[in-house]
Structure formats: structure tokens, C-alpha cells
């Protein structure tokens, strides 16, 4: 794919390539969903649930590939299933670092097993499939995959916007929200389900190992920049889209740099800039009860 992109091309050239169009189409939908979902993930202190989902995404996708199913089926079944499961189980007590870490490691170990089954059982398989799942391949999407990814991204974004008001209330003060009749628990489970869909989406763009950055960095930057929740919410989505666009453009101009690195570098750079140059203080909005 890097051979297709030559550094001499201008902006018009950039948009003329079908692989760039598909990357931008899918990337915009994925980034908008990740940024908007990420705002609540960071606000609710659930980044480590996102971390677990990213490990599960790797194993799910490779399990599907190993048994000859479309990787996206495994991806979404695994991430949404575990997301909802976490939401239901998460209510009962806290699992410690060691428990979560041990489960993480075992899930990854299982993923390695599926990599070896996939590469040995299917004769025509390419051995770089696991690398694509781990680090994404946004320039390798087909037109159909790009349209599906963009539509799912739009659907997730709309769903988050639809539940945003009660979810913000429940995130900032769960007990008062409950007293006011907000279905806090249902919202929590539904939200983790959405995070699962979002993780499955983002895996296709930046890969299972890096999706945490696309979820956490724009939201962290947005919460540094402003105190007002809705401004931060939209700002987080916009920063994520910006990171994907800049990343795709940089990777197009310098074909040696993989797009997932360029996207992550932009997102992390935004966060670093917000920490250094933004108003020097902690985000004011924090959930009352640490979860």
C-alpha cells in the first residue's frame, strides 16, 4: 500500500486515491464514535475496561479467522459480549489489579493460540493477519468494509448522543441520579456495550493494541481544555476525527510511517499540548464515587 502513495502528490491527488477516500470515510466514523464514547470512558474512570476490551478484540478477531469466519464477526461478538458482561459483573465488588492482569494475560495467550491455529491450518492465509489485528490497517479496507465501518460509527455516535444527558448525570453523581429515577445500572451496562462496539470498530482502524489511545487521548485532552461538559464532549469527538485525518495525511505523505502510528502520535501530541499549554489544573468533573 505504501507503494501506491508517493510523496509528490498534492492535496487533490490525496483525495483522488480510492484507498485514501475509504480510509477517511471509515476513519471519520470510527474516530467520531471513539472520541464521543471516550469522553464518558475517561469521565467514568473506565479506561481499564477499555484496555480489557482491546485484548478481547485481538483474541476474538483471531478466533474468528482461525475458524474461517469474517474477523469482524468475532471482533464484535467478543467485545460487545465482554463489555456487557463487565457491566453486569462490575456492580459486584471490585476485582483487583492482579485478577484483571491475570485474565488479560490469559486472554492474550489464547489469542496467540488462535494465531498459530490460523497460520498453520489455512493454507492460503497470510501470516501478517495478526499484525493487522494488533496494529490496524486503515489503508487496507475494502469499499464495503469502509461503508459498514462508517455506518456503525455513525450509529454508535447517535446512540451516545441519545443517552448523553442521563449518562452524564449518572456519571457525575450516581446516587442522586438514581434517586431522580435515572436507570443508572441499565445505562452503565448499555454504555459498556457501546464501548464494546466502539472497540471492535477502532480495531479495524488503529488495531487492538492502540485503540485505547484513540479512546483515552482525545477525551483526556478535551477534559484538560474546558470545564464545560458538553463543550468537552464535542471537543473530544472533534479531536479524535482530527487525529485520524492528520494521521492518514501524514502517512500518505511519508509512506514509511504506518497510519496507526501517525494517528496515535497526533492524538498523544494533542493531549501533551493540552496538558502543557492548556489551563494548568485538573479536570473539575470527576465522579463522586471512584469506580
Amino acid at each position, binding site marked *: 500500500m505504501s507503494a501506491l502513495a508517493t510523496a509528490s502528490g498534492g492535496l487533490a491527488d490525496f483525495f483522488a486515491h480510492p484507498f485514501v477516500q475509504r480510509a477517511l470515510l471509515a476513519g471519520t466514523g470510527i474516530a467520531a464514535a471513539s472520541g464521543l464514547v471516550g469522553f464518558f470512558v475517561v469521565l467514568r474512570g473506565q479506561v481499564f475496561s477499555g484496555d480489557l476490551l482491546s485484548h478481547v478484540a485481538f483474541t476474538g478477531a483471531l478466533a474468528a479467522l482461525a475458524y474461517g469466519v469474517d474477523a469482524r464477526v468475532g471482533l464484535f461478538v467478543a467485545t460487545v459480549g465482554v463489555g456487557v458482561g463487565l457491566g453486569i459483573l462490575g456492580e459486584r465488588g471490585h476485582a483487583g489489579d492482579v485478577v484483571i492482569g491475570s485474565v488479560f*494475560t*490469559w486472554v492474550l*495467550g489464547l489469542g496467540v493460540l488462535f494465531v498459530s491455529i490460523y497460520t498453520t491450518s489455512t493454507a492460503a492465509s497470510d501470516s501478517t493477519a495478526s499484525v493487522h489485528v494488533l496494529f490496524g490497517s486503515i489503508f487496507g479496507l475494502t469499499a464495503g468494509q469502509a461503508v459498514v465501518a462508517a455506518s456503525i460509527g455513525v450509529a454508535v455516535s447517535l446512540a451516545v448522543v441519545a443517552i448523553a444527558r442521563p449518562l452524564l448525570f449518572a456519571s457525575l453523581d450516581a446516587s442522586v441520579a438514581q434517586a431522580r429515577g435515572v436507570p443508572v445500572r441499565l445505562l452503565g451496562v448499555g454504555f459498556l456495550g457501546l464501548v464494546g462496539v466502539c472497540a471492535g470498530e477502532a480495531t479495524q482502524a488503529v488495531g487492538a*493494541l492502540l485503540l485505547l*489511545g484513540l479512546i*483515552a487521548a482525545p477525551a483526556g485532552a478535551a477534559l484538560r481544555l474546558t470545564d464545560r461538559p458538553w463543550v468537552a464532549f464535542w471537543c473530544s469527538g472533534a479531536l479524535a476525527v482530527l487525529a485520524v485525518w492528520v494521521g492518514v495525511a501524514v502517512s500518505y505523505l511519508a509512506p514509511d510511517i504506518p497510519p496507526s502510528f501517525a494517528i496515535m502520535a497526533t492524538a498523544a501530541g494533542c493531549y501533551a499540548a493540552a496538558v502543557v499549554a492548556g489551563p494548568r489544573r*485538573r479536570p473539575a468533573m470527576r465522579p463522586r464515587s471512584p469506580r
Partner: protein
Amino acid sequence: MLADGFTWDLGSDLHQLFQFHFMVNAYRAGTVVAVVAGLIGWFLVLRRQSFVGHTLAIIAFPGASGAVLIGISAAWGYFGFCVAGALVIGAVRRGRPGEFSEESAVVGTVQAFALACGFLFVTLYHGLLEDVNTLLFGSFLGITDAQVRTLLAVGLGALVALAVIARPLRFASIDPDVAAARGVPVRAVSTVFLVVVALAVAETSQITGALLVFSLLVVPPATAQAITARPVLSAALAVALALLATWVGLAISYFTDYPSGFTITTLAFAAYLLVHGARWMATGRHRLRLAR
């Protein structure tokens, strides 16, 4: 693989297992790493710092791939990046973690960025993309005599450093305030400990891969501490469990074609589940008896 296959004649199995030099080296390296990881991981779990181990392991990946990119041995990258990361964490860390919800966003971003850097180095190297799997998930193939000697030397150094700080470290881990009042240099001790952990993570990464370090560094000590509260006994158990997972895992991987990353992780995790399951059953029965 190259073997005739597993038989129930264990003598001939062992003979088969060790007929190739690469397998002997894999066992030597695995043994060194399991002892180092078991002992240092025991303190890591005691101090509830397993997450630091995870972060250092992720830093190991860009270290190793960066070293390969500039043409030096991956081992230098592992040791250099892990120790540098430990010093940075030791210098930056302040206050009590966990109260500030932004911290998780920072950790998530730093981890993802470190992994992205590792991927960039691998891509720039233009090598086989399969090497990524080796760096992330480990491989026991092609370990040289020189590598085993390096692992042994660094492992011994880390264990000596740990032995020197062991007593003040245990005191500082159990009650930092009292230890500080008694004149224990708590901060210096914990920074030295982080460097020791970095060396252990760098060693473990070379066997299990950067992403599966927990399987030897955290899971066996956590299992051992669930079995007994007596410190010396549980540290010895941690080493024994790590050794068992490594030895049996390598053997299964040799005879069956399953990757060693999967077999070692699964064995360690199975022991953990077994012990916790047994404990849960025991307390459940106890509670039932109390209820009656």
C-alpha cells in the same frame, strides 16, 4: 515439530526434549527467568505494584524493536528502555495514585503511544512482520549461549540488589509511614526496587514476549501468596510455580506445536484458578457451617 512425538516413556521424552541445543538453551534461559521473575514478582505483588510491571513490559516492546532497528541486540533495548522507564516512573510518581480519574487516561495514552512507536520501528526496519509476534508474544527458538550468559549475569545482579534491599523493602512495603519514621530511606529503596523490577521485566520479556510478562512475573507469586501467608515459603512456592509453568509449558510447546506463549500463560493461569477456586470452596463451606 522435529520430535518423534510424545510417548508415555518419560525417559525417552526427556532424551528427545534435550537432543537439540536450542531446546537446552531454551530450558536454561527459561529457568533463569523463572527464578528471577518468581522472586522479584513476589515483592511486586506484595507491594501491589503489578500495574507498574505491565507498564514497564509495554515499554520493553519499542525498546527491543528500536534496538533491532539501529542494529544492536534486542537485549540491550529491553534492558535500556525498561531501566530508563523505571527511573522515570520513580522520579515522577508522587502522592497516592487512583484518586485522580485523569491518571488512567494518561496511562492509557502513554501505553498506546509506546506500542505505536514499537510498531513504527518494526515497520521502518522492513524486516519480516512476523517478528512483531516474537517480540510481543515470545519465542523460545534461537536463544544463543551468549544470551543465556547475559540473562544469568543480569538476573544474578538483580537478585543480589534485591537481597541487599530485601529487609528494608519488606518493612517499607508493609508500613511505609512507620518505616520512614524508623529511618528507612523509603523513597530510595522503592526506586532501587523499580530498577530491579525493570531488569526482571526485561528478562521475562525475552522469554514470554512483552505482552505476556504477567504470566511469570505476577501470576505465580499471586498464586503462592494465596496458598500461604508465610513469606519464605510463599516466595519459594512462587519460584516453584514459575519454574513448573515454564518447564512444562516449553515441553508441551515442543511436542504439540502450540506456541509457548499460550502454554506457559495457560498453565500459570490454571494454577491461579485452581488455588482460588479451592480457597473459595473452603470459605464457602466454612460460611455454610457458620450459617447452620
